[in-house]
């Protein structure tokens, strides 16, 4: 995969989802819920 990407003339991609970012840098809200 890396070799193919490195030879590409251009690379670009973008993803989208519903926004759920809420955190500030003091606390991490990465997981949806603890186990």
């Amino acid at each position: 995969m890396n070799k193919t990407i490195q030879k590409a003339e251009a690379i670009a991609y973008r993803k989208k989802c519903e926004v759920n970012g809420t955190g500030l840098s003091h606390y991490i809200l990465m997981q949806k819920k603890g186990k």
Partner: protein
Amino acid sequence: MSRKSTIIAAPSRGRYANTGNGPSLQPIDIGHDTYVGLVDPDTAFWSLVRKDKLGDVIAGSDLLSQYRKKSAAFAQEMEMLRFKLKPSAVYFNPTERCNLNCDYCYIPEEMRKNGEHMSEGDLLEALAILKSYFRKTLPKESLPQIVFHGSEPMLNREVVFSAIERYQNDFRFGLQTNGTLLDDAAIDFLTSRGVGIGLSVDGHTAEIANKTRHNWTGEGSFSKVLAAMERLRGYSSYNVICTVTNQNMQSLCQIVDFFHSCEVPVCMLNPVRCTQSGAQNIKPSDNQLAKYYLAALDRTYELFQKTGRRLVVANFANVLIGIVAPTARRLMCDISPCGAGRCFFALSAKGDIFPCSEFIGLPNFKGGNIFTNDLAKTLTSEPFSKVTGRKVENIEPCRHCAVRHFCGAPCPAEANEIHGSLDSVGAFCELYEEQVRYALRQIADGKENAFLWDGWDLGTVTTFNLSTP
């Protein structure tokens, strides 16, 4: 004679990049042998173009034609992300007091030393008000988040635990703690209820960690936090924050090794927020910090290659996600306007409401009080509007910067205290420049997933995909 104020549309058909109505694409050096970055700053669109093909791409290409079709949608996406969100989290200080006296704390010393705990009655009433507010503003399936924060929330343990017990079906709870009071019973209570736990550790040895994190008599906290880290080993909703100062930046690679060996799933390497003078005194130089920080990121990559287990550096991961999937970002400091007052707000132990915890020591930014003022009005008060209105378009040199929406010029409280104005640049501009360049290099080499957690893109859809041979 009156003038017409109507905006006249330019007749340009947008056929050319960087003129008329054509897309604005700024090339940026990312320090890569093969690729340069090509970025539309306003839509946060990025691409990587082979250096020997840049002229061809600008002159007309598949990339350009595909981007033209998407640029309006990307602009709309950024507009929504930057200006249309509603608060869904509260940083809740259940006490003013702290058993530690860390050098860089943004809570005023008098408050931490002689302040008061919030009573159980007040805390439960505050949560009832918040529950009622969020029920009106958030979708039914969305649980608002309460993060008990400090000062040290575990000093008011019984009241905090009582609140978690009472409201466990109404909020997602988290606890940011210095870790010194986390005994087995506390950890059992918190982990059995899925409460997120954040610890603070500034070094891999007592000598380094205790330089900045110690109690009022100077005794370091490292050994107690280390014991808490051992107890939390294996718990998925646990993380460690390392505040980076001029006292520990040289040790970031060893700190990463240490966290990885302790099986910390996620850490943050946060440059110290220079809101108060204690923090300003130990501020690392921006360019030196960038060098050590990137070396630490390299180290996490090496560890992943060697062991197959990641240590995610969440603040870098967030910058990386802000590039490849702007709406999937989790942390809302490095976006403009930042999340303060618009995605989250902070509640002091007296019930006072501020846009963010960083403002708790700055009385001019108090928006109201949860017990005496209407919450919705508080969130649109003048102090809140000042912060939520701070945007990179009004800041030099950010308004010209190609990576302004990958950085966001954090943080307003810090900028205000250092430079005397909210509309001034953040304290770590070069660190963000280097993080974005580093992130784009990882993408160029197909290595970006090594820096992100498994499943980070669940629920996302691909809206642009180009990889021309």
